[in-house]
């Protein structure tokens, strides 16, 4: 074997002993397990958008429920002899439960609580007292009886 061959063989052994310093697969992030954040972070904008939509839908549905209550569209009432109760079928219970022992008719407020009407002043004359109060007498009109007697005698031939 020539000297060059021998040296090539020795250099080959040296060459083959060279190793990559580390793990190339790990360096390239091939084997790292996906963490929770790696999965969740890309989903964050969608989660925010979804929660906003849910909030809008919830507000809208609650407003439409109030409208039904005020309009009284689907209210139903059942009457029990001697008792009156309102039952709402929209699932919203009244804020105060009706008492069956008290009458459902509203009581008239006491008369004392109504203020007296203003009384007309008695010390003030209802008619003016100065000279202007005497009106001139109207001109005398001829009597119809008299007019009929004279006209008949003139027009009707005897």
């Amino acid at each position, binding site marked *: 074997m020539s000297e060059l061959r021998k040296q090539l063989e020795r250099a*080959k052994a040296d060459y083959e002993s060279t190793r990559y310093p580390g793990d*190339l697969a790990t360096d*390239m992030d091939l084997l790292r397990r996906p963490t929770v954040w790696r999965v969740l972070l890309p989903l964050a904008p969608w989660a925010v958008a979804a929660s906003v939509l849910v909030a809008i839908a919830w507000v809208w549905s609650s407003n439409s429920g109030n409208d039904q209550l005020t309009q009284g569209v689907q209210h139903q009432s059942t009457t029990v002899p001697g008792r009156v109760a309102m039952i709402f079928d929209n699932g919203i219970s009244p804020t105060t439960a009706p008492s069956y022992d008290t009458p459902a008719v509203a009581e008239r407020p006491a008369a004392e609580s109504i203020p007296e009407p203003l009384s007309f002043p008695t010390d003030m004359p209802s008619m003016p007292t100065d000279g202007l109060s005497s009106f001139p007498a109207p001109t005398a009109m001829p009597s119809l009886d008299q007019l009929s007697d004279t006209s008949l005698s003139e027009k009707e031939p005897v």
Partner: protein
Amino acid sequence: MDEQTLEAAKRGDRRAQATLIRDLQDVWYRFSLSQLGNADLAADAAQETALRFLRDLKSFRGASSLKTWSLGISINVVRELRRKRKLGGPGELGDQADESPSPVDAANTGEQVSQLRVLLADLPERQRESIILRFFENLSVDETAKAMNVAPGTIKATIHQALRSLKTKMSRGRDLSS
């Protein structure tokens, strides 16, 4: 390296890809180090080779061995890196070349391996590549030709020129030392 692992890696199985890369990482690194002469640059070249290897793995049809095919990628990466950094041979900068200052000094100290390494560094790029692939990576002439994307006859001629140049330089070094 079995066929199942290769197919799984082609389908994108990360474990299979990691297995392939672990099998080939030393090949890419030591080839890059022999061409660039710098450990950091060689590590960068190995990583870039791995990236392109995974990117192009689906196009691998098995016309040559996976090692030969991947060495073709590594050759391109090293050439691009050398061109980008305007490097000459591995002797210009390098951890290996720094250990032995010149072929004459290496011969005088009797460090034949270091001497040969320096002599290889002085070879033209194509001759150095063909010697490394043919004699150090044990590729056949055809495999070396496929990896370097040239005809087998060209490889034979290139290797012949490289060996003759090495012989001449070695005998010149012996003459100088004696």
